[in-house]
């Protein structure tokens, strides 16, 4: 009986459907990810068991660096037409007698990372071409009682967006003094509810052990 002879052909798999599928998944993931914004200060958030995710909108975030500098960040609101950031900056400009051009307001609107610039250097900061120049201007928002710009930012942020929620993002090594100052300023403005930004950590309790 003659043997059945299979044709020797290199096994070639058609990968086109696989590539199609991967493309779809990849595009989906790329569009849904929110890129992490580079922060002006490195902050390692402490751990907690809380599982509430951080809200996407209506937040003002206070970044407390280890060296005591304070940075602040707002969002533009859930709708692109709301443009909270330029409105807040304009109010700040009116308060301190600084006129911001539309281009500067737009630059501020597009900025996503926290800022820690005294208001008199804000123009320089917004017009800076280089990131290094920008970072050198980030000396932290002044919070002395004589020139409490942080309180003004909070005031105008709440005027522009009444639903704004205060979030605190601190390094676990940040001294308590600067935290207390920020809490104090917020409480002076009747903000008594805070969200502390933390990383998730599991905690287990052995009940039997306690009952002994």
């Amino acid at each position: 009986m003659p043997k059945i002879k299979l044709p020797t052909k290199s096994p070639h798999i058609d990968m086109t459907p696989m590539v199609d599928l991967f493309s779809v998944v990849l595009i989906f993931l790329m569009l849904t990810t929110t890129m992490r914004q580079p922060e002006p200060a490195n902050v390692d958030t402490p751990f907690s068991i809380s599982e509430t995710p951080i809200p996407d909108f209506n937040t003002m975030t206070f970044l407390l660096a280890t060296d005591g500098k304070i940075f602040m960040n707002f969002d533009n609101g859930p709708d692109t037409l709301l443009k909270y950031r330029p409105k807040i900056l304009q109010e700040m400009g009116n308060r301190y007698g600084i006129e911001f051009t539309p281009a500067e307001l737009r630059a501020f609107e597009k900025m996503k990372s926290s800022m820690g610039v005294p208001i008199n250097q804000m123009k320089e900061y917004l017009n800076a071409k280089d990131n290094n120049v920008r970072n050198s201007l980030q000396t932290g928002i002044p919070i002395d009682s004589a020139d409490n710009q942080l309180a003004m930012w909070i005031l105008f942020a709440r005027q522009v967006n009444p639903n704004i929620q205060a979030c605190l993002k601190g390094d676990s090594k940040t001294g308590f003094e600067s935290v207390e100052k920020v809490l104090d300023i917020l409480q002076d403005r009747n903000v008594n509810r805070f969200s502390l930004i933390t990383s998730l950590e599991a905690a287990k309790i052995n009940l039997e052990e306690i009952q002994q």
Partner: protein
Amino acid sequence: MAEIIVEEKAKGGKRKAKKHPPHIDMTPMVDLMCLLIVFFMLTTAFSKAKVMDIILPEKIKDPTKQEAPRISASRTLNILLGPNDKVYIYPGSVKPEDYSAVPPNLPPLTETDFSAEGIRMVLLERNRALFRKINDFNQEVISGRISISQDSARSMVSKLKSDDDTGPIVLIKAHKSANYGNFVDILDEMNICGIARYTFVKIAWYEERMVELASGGAASQATASAN
């Protein structure tokens, strides 16, 4: 890398490509895409930060018009956050005649830390009844004996907490030498132990003294370097 295999045949001196679809080797492309997908999947899953909500008592702006709330001293537990991740606790409160005496008559502090055997044991010990109730309820929800939506389960737990009248009333106070991590840790312990009543209050001057005495100079050193 794209490998285009086109079979050619010489015919009458002229080279003419055979009508055959060119075949591209897609393996490297697939490899690359796999890597990108894995990268994106890993980064998205972990990028969302969590928040812990805390409501602080409203500031009393005019002490003459508004009186500080009275709480029973027997249920009060004071937690003082000190330097080097240390926690100091003392029960009850200090009477004005005690701290204004010369020398001040201050209660002794118990030193503990943030480990599972430290402050957590102290809190669970005092909050055992409520913690047990919450734990039993959660177990029944998890095991399916009570079918209840997540929201109503949460409101049940908060009702258990507000009905509780035996657990401690915890007052958290932070010394200047403590850090932000300690503050979050202690609030986290409150959540872990299911403490119904806790709040964060400003440290009193005599409590600062107590921490400085108990820590043996570490706290005053930190204060000096901060100034």
